[in-house]
């Protein structure tokens, strides 16, 4: 189905400001960089985590360890959606996650199912002392009682609208669009 409307809601500078704010908030909550680690969720959460890592280094002078996580194998809808043949790499941050405050970084939090899967997976990886959930965009539509700790921007969108986060490594630009997919909205 072709996209009907694509409206930019955050351009590169806005994303940059949001990331800076999120980095500060992480440092505040954790009271510094002590035993802090970042885990980006495939695919675009990995890039957002990278931006946060840079930002934290700028703010606190410390490069906190960073890993990545692919939640495909922890999804609760494999039987329904069919397999995703390409499974991204799950990689622990150097030093692991045991006794660390782990910030899980997602691009968009929507139903909460990705967050659920990510937390289950993290618990199989080790015992973090604390898990924070951090999303660049928070949109409505939660199906599980899960709320993010740190949010770049909350947006209100309709059920037939989609939030696209774009990162340079995959999409060539940094930004956030709202896409209206339903034909009756056209």
């Amino acid at each position, binding site marked *: 189905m072709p996209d009907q409307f694509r409206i930019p809601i955050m351009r590169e500078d806005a994303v940059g400001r949001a990331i800076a704010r999120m980095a500060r908030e992480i440092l505040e909550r954790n009271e510094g960089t002590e035993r802090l680690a970042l885990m980006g969720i495939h695919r675009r959460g990995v890039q957002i985590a990278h931006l946060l890592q840079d930002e934290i280094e700028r703010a606190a002078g410390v490069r906190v360890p960073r890993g990545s996580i692919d939640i495909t*194998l*922890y999804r609760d809808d494999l039987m*329904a*959606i*069919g397999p995703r*043949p390409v499974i991204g790499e*799950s990689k622990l941050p150097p030093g692991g996650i045991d006794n660390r405050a782990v910030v899980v970084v997602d691009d968009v939090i929507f139903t909460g199912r990705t967050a659920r899967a990510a937390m289950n997976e993290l618990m199989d990886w080790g015992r973090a002392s604390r898990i924070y959930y951090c999303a660049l965009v928070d949109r409505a539509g939660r199906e599980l009682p899960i709320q993010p700790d740190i949010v770049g921007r909350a947006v209100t969108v309709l059920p037939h609208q989609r939030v696209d986060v774009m990162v340079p490594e995959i999409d060539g630009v940094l930004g956030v669009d709202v896409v209206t*997919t339903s034909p009756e909205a056209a």
Partner: protein
Amino acid sequence: MSRSAAAAAGLGKDLVGIEHLGARRITSILDTAEPFKEISERRIKKVPTLRGLTIVNLFFEASTRTRISFEFAEKRLAADTVNIGASRSSVAKGETLVDTARNLEAMKIDMVVMRHWASGAARFLAERIPSNVINAGDGAHEHPTQALLDMLTLRDHLGAIAGRRVCIVGDVRHSRVARSNIFGLLTLGAEVGVCGPPTLIPPHMRELGVRIFHRIEEAIEWAHALNVLRLQLERMEAGFVPSLREYNRIWGVSRARLAVAPEPLLILHPGPMNRGVEIDSDVADGPHSVILEQVTNGVAVRMAVLYLLAGGRPEKAEAAKAEEVA
């Protein structure tokens, strides 16, 4: 999207053989296996992907290795598994394969991994039950997951399959491993040779596009990798080779023979090995042997196949896709 187009994107309901898979699907399985290698390195070697699925390992022939490899793969994907061996099942009481299958179905299972003595048995079962069927070896026909793990191992070491020369050595006539490897390697663009006594090489193999070597020295000079097959003791008893000693002296893969190769050959063996028959210990344990990597890759490949088949129900994928748009 038509049903056939949906099926082409995934693996379909069953994995019965390599022959008709096509390069795209084979490559997709190998690529999917890569991330599964890492799961076996985790502290908790288990992901919840197949939670709630019941998988029956139905082995009409004893095969400790293949069954255990499948069982590891199933358990690491959190499936529930039941093992049925020929001696314990009702085949001995004259029950037909159809009846066995229907009885399993009646117990509401999701997948069957089957090893059977008859060529075509996996396909037979797949056509008759709605569960996914994975062929774990049917007679002298195919053993697809073995070929996939062999190809994954070859790709890891040779960088690619296309253009590489792989020679399968030994009892090709009776070997499902040989057939699956031949089909898969040819599909991926490798050059394939087979080597062994003419009594163990079906003459019509040449028509498949396979080079036939009757002397191991020529095969070693030609190949980048040797996949050495197990020589069953029964072959000697049936008169295909006069003695195991003679077989070792003429077709055995030894260090001395490998020494003359222009560059070191990769050595594969599907196991279990007869040391001192088809392969000498110093080769099996030598620096170019990847036999234990094959075992490790076997679990990853089987996880990938289980994963792809579990989700690979095209009608469900289509229904979900319609919802996902919203």
